[in-house]
């Protein structure tokens, strides 16, 4: 009940932010500077407002998700739920950008590609984290067993001696990994869709200054999307690393290599937390976009 209340409050707040931004900034005159380019104020502020609304809704939905779900499933899904809301906010902001109106329309003969706008370092880090998460939950799913109430994929089982088994739970087996994989996959697909929206939306003008400004807006959006995907992947990765390391180091009769694996997972946990910090900074200040190549012809 408390989670639903948080979700409803956050959704209302996000809606108010988005609607207010639309009304206030829809006809804002002048320009603002984004990464050195003079961007039409209306487009820049409107997209920023939708992004902020997405972050607020994501925080509320993430908090609500963390409070729901049986046996720790909720906190595991909070990151992906947050990321999905941010992606929806960014996509809505991009869709709100309209081309220059009038009977005479001009467009450049160019092919805009996703890779021209992605922040390369961050995108590589997020891709690596997603691959590590996929590999890790594949291993933990295969090695999991049922708990004492027969719930499949919830604990780690180890046969210490003949007839003696030690168990440790929670362990990220299928009980956790299946819903997690579904939500993360949905989030990454949504991220790809949001990037397509960013690339495909109309340009705000065709002259050199307008193109530079428009590219700056697109890079900002792509950076935010990458950051949201980073949170979507890094938060559950950190959770899986922490729980797995705890399990490996807690079972008393474990083989020696489990100790090394446990410490390696703790090192991975630090990397995941660092990636979360990087992504959070990107979500708060996306204008510091990485330099990317101009669209190809």
């Amino acid at each position, binding site marked *: 009940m408390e989670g639903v209340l948080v979700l409803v409050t956050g959704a209302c707040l996000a809606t108010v932010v988005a609607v207010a931004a639309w009304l206030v900034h829809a006809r804002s005159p002048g320009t603002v500077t984004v990464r050195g380019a003079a961007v039409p104020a209306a487009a820049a502020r409107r997209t920023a407002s939708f992004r902020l609304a997405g972050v607020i809704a994501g925080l509320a939905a993430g908090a609500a998700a963390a409070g729901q779900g049986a046996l720790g499933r909720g906190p595991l899904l909070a990151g992906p739920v947050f990321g999905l809301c941010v992606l929806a906010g960014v996509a809505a902001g991009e869709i709100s950008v309209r*081309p220059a*109106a009038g*009977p*005479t*329309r*001009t*467009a*450049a*003969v*160019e*092919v*805009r590609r996703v890779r021209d706008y992605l922040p390369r370092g961050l995108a590589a880090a997020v891709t690596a984290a997603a691959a590590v998460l996929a590999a890790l939950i594949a291993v933990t799913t295969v090695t999991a067993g049922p708990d004492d109430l027969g719930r499949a994929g919830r604990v780690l089982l180890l046969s210490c001696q003949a007839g003696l088994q030690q168990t440790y739970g929670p362990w990220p087996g299928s009980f956790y990994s299946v819903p997690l994989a579904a939500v993360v996959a949905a989030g990454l697909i949504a991220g790809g869709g949001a990037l397509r929206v960013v*690339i*495909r*939306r*109309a*340009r705000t003008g*065709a002259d050199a200054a307008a193109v530079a400004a428009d590219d700056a807006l697109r890079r900002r959006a792509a950076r935010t999307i990458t950051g949201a995907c980073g949170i979507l992947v890094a938060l559950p990765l950190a959770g899986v690393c922490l729980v797995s390391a705890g399990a490996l180091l807690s079972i008393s009769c474990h083989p020696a290599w489990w100790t090394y694996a446990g410490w390696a997972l703790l090192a991975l946990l630090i990397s995941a937390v660092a990636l979360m910090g990087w992504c959070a900074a990107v979500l708060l200040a996306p204008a510091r976009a990485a330099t990317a190549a*101009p669209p*190809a*012809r």
Partner: protein
Amino acid sequence: MTARPLLTVDTGNPTPPYEQLRRQLAELIQSAALAPGDRLPPLRQLAADLGLAVGTVARAYRELESAGLVSSRRGGGTRVSATAPSLSDSERQQLLRSHARTFVQQATLLGADEQQILDTIAQALAT
């Protein structure tokens, strides 16, 4: 870095938008501003940039394909054909003179004298 060619569509012009697009793209290809192998913008992207329906741009691309100027491949987009006919030097000169005549006629209708026309061209070259 070479300037990216621009396409302009005037919705107030009696010529249908798909024909305006087809004509401009054909000129860009024949004048080698778009070289064989160059990729044309994806349908949806160009339609969004120009505020046109996707079907309008698709029709222009189909007409160019029928004329052998471009070829479309599933997943590979639409590219300028390797066999696209290009203008000879004399045809290029003829086209340039034709465009110049059209510009001078329109400028004269606007009341511009010879010096104003030359100044305008100089300004356009400088930008």
